[in-house]
């Protein structure tokens, strides 16, 4: 049973972690994630993302601070708090010699799910994640993408209210990655809170509603994805053009000629796309199609991190 008055799936207050040897991985972070949110936790390597997840899931002992999951403090109600969490860790951590079905059924058992129910769920998730044909294979026989999907299936076996995914699509090809995105979206629509760390900023931008950026053990930004992206003063568009004989020149606009039919233009918020179209039209160049350049978040991310490092 969840705490009825609790609106946050996760509340972190003044969380700090210093490892043996003195490395300060977390320097007092505060973070709240609402129930049902799709939340991104971004940061460069070594910023503290995995340590934060480790503390939430009790794999890392915190030095100080409070963490509560659906209203249950991990210091006083650890087992209750754990029962709400499904974890997909960054590294493969299942028994490589065990058949997939056993891995899933045993994992469900650790959460008190009986074998009969666990077998039904195992079939459901293995089918949804396209692993059913491999159900009797040992973990080591799977490809990298399959192993990642197996860990997602395993994390769902006790039907958690909050799913934490640490770099879930690392090393996964584009087609499978997009399939996983769709699956995660469906889970979120069913009400599961999802917290995601990723290196693919496009992934965070596509999936997440709220975002925190962590750097050097501190939260440097914590806002909605829309709010963060609105901070961008410049938006980049990619234009596919008809073949043009002469060199294109655009006044008052920053642009780059990528090849003989592709142009990238950076528009400031105050500028209008018509300014581009009218100048191209005057030079007898047709715009065949146009799209936003993805990874807008990347520019912002680099900007935020570099600002912090410059201080």
């Amino acid at each position, binding site marked *: 049973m969840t705490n009825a008055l609790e609106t946050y799936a996760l509340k972190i207050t003044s969380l700090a972690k210093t490892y043996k040897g003195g490395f300060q991985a977390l320097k007092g972070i505060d973070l709240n994630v609402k129930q049902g949110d799709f939340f991104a936790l971004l940061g460069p390597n070594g910023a503290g993302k995995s340590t934060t997840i480790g503390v939430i*899931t009790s794999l890392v002992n915190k030095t100080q601070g409070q963490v509560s999951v659906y209203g249950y403090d991990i210091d006083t109600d650890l087992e*209750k708090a754990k029962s709400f969490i499904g974890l997909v*860790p960054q590294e493969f951590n299942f*028994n490589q010699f*065990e058949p997939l079905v056993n891995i899933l059924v*045993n994992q469900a*058992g*650790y959460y*008190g*799910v009986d074998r009969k129910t666990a077998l039904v769920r195992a079939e459901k998730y293995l089918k949804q994640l396209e692993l059913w044909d491999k159900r009797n294979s040992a973990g080591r026989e799977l490809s990298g993408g399959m192993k990642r999907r197996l860990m997602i299936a395993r994390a769902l076996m006790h039907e958690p209210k909050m799913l934490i995914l640490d770099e879930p699509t690392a090393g996964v090809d584009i087609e499978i990655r997009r399939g996983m995105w769709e699956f995660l979206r469906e889970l979120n629509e069913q009400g599961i809170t999802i917290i995601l760390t990723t290196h693919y900023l496009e992934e965070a931008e596509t999936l997440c509603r709220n975002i925190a950026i962590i750097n050097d053990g501190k939260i440097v930004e914590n806002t909605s994805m829309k709010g963060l992206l609105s901070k961008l003063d410049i938006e980049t568009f990619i234009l596919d053009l008809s073949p043009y004989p002469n060199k294109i020149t655009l006044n008052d606009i920053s642009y780059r000629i990528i090849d003989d039919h592709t142009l990238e233009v950076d528009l400031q918020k105050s500028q209008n796309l018509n300014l581009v179209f009218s100048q191209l039209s005057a030079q007898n160049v047709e715009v065949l199609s146009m799209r936003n350049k993805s990874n807008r978040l990347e520019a912002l991310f680099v900007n935020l991190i570099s600002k912090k490092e410059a201080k």
Partner: protein
Amino acid sequence: MNNSIALKSILNKEIQRFMRIWVQTLVPPAITISLYFVIFGSLIGSRIGEMGGFDYMSFIVPGLIMMSVITNSYSNVASSFFSAKWQRNVEEMLVAPVPNWVIVAGYVGGGMARGILVGLIVTLVSLLFVDIQIHNIWVIIATVSLTSATFALGGLINAIFAGSFDDISIIPTFILTPLTYLGGVFYSISLLPEFWQGVSQINPIVYMVNAFRYGFLGISDVSITTAFAVIGFFIITLFIIAMTLISKGIGLRS
């Protein structure tokens, strides 16, 4: 949270593991014990004559069974728990709401299951060489269960501290094997000079082997009450140590 399901899951996993690799886990003790019977029982034993009022072959059977139980209970938990640490699948349990006592009980139960199963196999093999008599079945059951639990706990503690596969073979090689061989498996400690009889009494395996032998033959070098008190002391002490280590996350949590 239903702890009995979690306990059953760990137990199932552990039993499935050693059954999956039965050629490595169940066959070697049967072969080793057959060799002991052929060499020490038939070839050499026939020249030794009686020991404790029984022919030598009958005298060593309980000790040989107990030796297999001790080795297999210990090594099952040591290698399984260390592998789980090494492959990091121990995290599957650590992130779940499984109480620490369930983790300890699950692994110890797995070690006991292998130790007792190997004990049964070795007993069946020994029937090919000697007629086994039973003096007190309850003493046999209690001794084999408690001894396998003791060494399963020892294997768990070893695995918690181990940082490499070498670390889980050091204690069996340098401590467990000498203690077992000097634990009265092949001889009655009453044959030793008085000083070495005294030294033998600090070896816990002496109590386990003798209690077990009492169950079969009705003879023992030590009092059965003392033997169970010693085994009980070791179980409680090792259980407290294992629980403390897991609760503190030694070797498991950063």
